[in-house]
């Protein structure tokens, strides 16, 4: 009895320590966002004063207006969303199907095919820029949505396949066997049984694909020539001068660019934590 009372009274101290730690971690995590927002309402010249954060003399909301109007923000946002959503969906579909084909199905080259696709992780983007451009040019595909959608999918696929196939390997085969016994066909197994079980790893793949391609610039700048399909990183470019840049507006653009990512993270965070927890139990 006494013991239990002792434990109860010591509990708040432990809780306080945990709270302090969590707050410290939260501050470290959130600081960059605060910093981004702070600098996005300052003037370019205030940026180089000493100190971590600036207290702007005047709050420059006009930075955001400039970012919206001169930065062509809405068009780029539309393109970014369309391209990234398409890339994520296609990467997910192809990853699931390839993972099933190479880890569950038995055929001669299943291992080799998987390794060849995974080798894609080793290819640096810069090495593919020129050859791809020449191919697109011959096919008259430069400046089309395919010109960036294809490489975005191709470069995200190895990672997606790696995650889904290793997760799929941990799903007991007996489930599928039972499904077949009950008269389930192969496509139904994938769609109805496997995919829902992969949900947590699929969320990870989606986020990683989305994040990588959301900020991609090198390929987009090489394969696209006009504003038609250009994505958000081009908005920052609009404020890059020959020698020095309009940093304040660039910060505003970056804040606007980061916003959709933050929102998506908040929406999916439940699944992410769940995924991590489930993975831990399974492991």
């Amino acid at each position, binding site marked *: 009895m006494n013991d239990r009372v002792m434990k109860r009274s010591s509990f708040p101290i432990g809780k306080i320590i945990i709270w302090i730690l969590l707050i410290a971690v939260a501050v470290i995590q959130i600081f960059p966002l605060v910093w981004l927002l702070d600098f996005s309402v300052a003037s370019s*010249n205030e940026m180089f004063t000493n100190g971590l954060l600036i207290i702007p003399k005047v709050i420059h909301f006009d930075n955001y207006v400039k970012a919206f109007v001169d930065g062509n923000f809405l068009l780029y946002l539309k393109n970014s969303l369309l391209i990234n959503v398409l890339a994520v969906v296609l990467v997910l579909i192809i990853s699931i199907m390839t993972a099933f084909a190479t880890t569950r199905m038995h055929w001669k080259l299943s291992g080799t095919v998987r390794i060849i696709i995974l080798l894609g992780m080793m290819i640096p983007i810069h090495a593919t820029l*020129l050859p791809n451009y020449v191919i697109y040019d011959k096919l008259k595909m430069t400046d089309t949505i395919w010109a960036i959608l294809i490489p975005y999918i191709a470069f995200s696929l190895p990672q997606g396949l790696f995650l889904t196939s290793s997760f799929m390997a941990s799903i007991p085969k007996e489930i599928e066997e039972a499904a077949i016994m009950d008269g389930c*066909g192969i496509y139904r197994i994938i769609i109805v049984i496997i995919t829902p079980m992969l949900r947590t790893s699929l969320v990870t793949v989606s986020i990683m694909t989305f994040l990588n391609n959301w900020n991609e610039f090198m390929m987009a700048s090489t394969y696209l020539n006009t504003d038609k399909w250009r994505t958000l990183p081009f908005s920052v470019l609009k404020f890059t001068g*020959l020698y020095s840049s309009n940093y304040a507006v660039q910060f505003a653009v970056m804040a606007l660019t980061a916003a959709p990512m933050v929102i998506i993270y908040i929406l999916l965070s439940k699944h992410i934590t769940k995924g991590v927890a489930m993975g831990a139990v399974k492991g």
Partner: protein
Amino acid sequence: MKKLFSLVLVLAMILSLAACGNKDDDKTGDDNGTSPTTAPDDSSDDDATGEAVTIKVFTNLPDRTTGQGFVEQTLFDSYMAENKNVKIEVEALDDEAYKTKFKAYAAGTTMPDLVSVWGQPGFIDEVMDAGLLQELNAADYADYGFIPGSLDGFSKDGKLYGLARNTDVIGFYYNAKMFQDNGWTVPTTYTELLALADTINAKGIIPVAMDGGDKWPLYIYMTDLLQKIDGTGVMQKTADAIANADFSDPSFKKAAELLREAASKGLFQTGFETTDYGTAKNLFTNGQSAMFYMGSWEMSMATNQDIAPEIRDNIRVFTMPLIDGAQGKATDISAWNGGGYSVTASGAQKEEAIKLLNYMFKPEGWTKLAWENGVCMSAQDFSQFATGNETEVQKQFTELVKSATSLSGTPLGDMGTSEFKTQSSDLTQEVSIGVKTADEYLQGLAGASK
């Protein structure tokens, strides 16, 4: 169940067949798409018909609302207003991305019609050798008032391939009020400059804000010193040294030692080798440094409303002071013609692009606008556009160019291949912070030339 799947399969097959058919349609569509663009090319000679023309421009000026990008866009807009049938499509990327994309374009079948180029061997030699640029008729520009020698970088074997956009002069911007308040005087010799650095440092102020992180200001400093050591023939000497991979000429060693001496005696801020452009500039515009080593394009600081008036109105400039026992005179300055434009040989609208280029470089075009906006000095004679409202620093630069007895030409790092540029930039940074000795530096440069 099986039936369902066979149905799905059949559907998928039909869809994929349809997709194939579509692809073929697309292809023919594309072929059709290209023919209209070639058609105006054939008939572009008779412009009177007013057939729609689209000129594609690829430029390294992404910011279209300030600085040189603004001037460029203004000229495009007025050209389109005067020629209703012409549409100008601008694709703009910053230097790094520009050069990568330029290579991609060069590898492809068609290039944009009008492109930004750098009249420096490091960039333009490869491009001219590959036959990517259209020859311009040099006689057309006889009365355009280009400063003698400004088009040399854009020429090969007596043929002209591009026009220079601006004249760049390097110098020390200084805060005249700070100098006056503290009783400092503008140094006339290099020894005086270093002595002044001591005095300024003692006050707790940075003497010269240096953008060492980008490295190119450091090799420009080298060329600046060479110009004051030799007086003339710096560009030729550098070109020969690179061609023979031999930097044993004593002038190079002297310059490298003087650069190292300046850095070790605290002429630049601590950690200058990692300071980038914006930070260095802001050290100066916030009054944390007394001087700023940078090119004439920064003369627009004097009209920049973001800079506090007591600093903005007191910006003046002086060039590299004399070096004891050297041949260079005060009027032997470091200046060159860097950026410019060329028309590509494979562009679809060559004739129209040349017309646009000629329009831009009429003296009342680029030169006038750039000067009036205090953006930069053009490579043409701009004295006729003097408004009388020029800032002090604009007047100083004009005077410097007018009274110059010799110009250095292209800076050291821009004289060789792009590989040489990378290596010489790194080496110059290393010698300035004392990681390499002057001898090791020159050996490194020789190695990079091979």
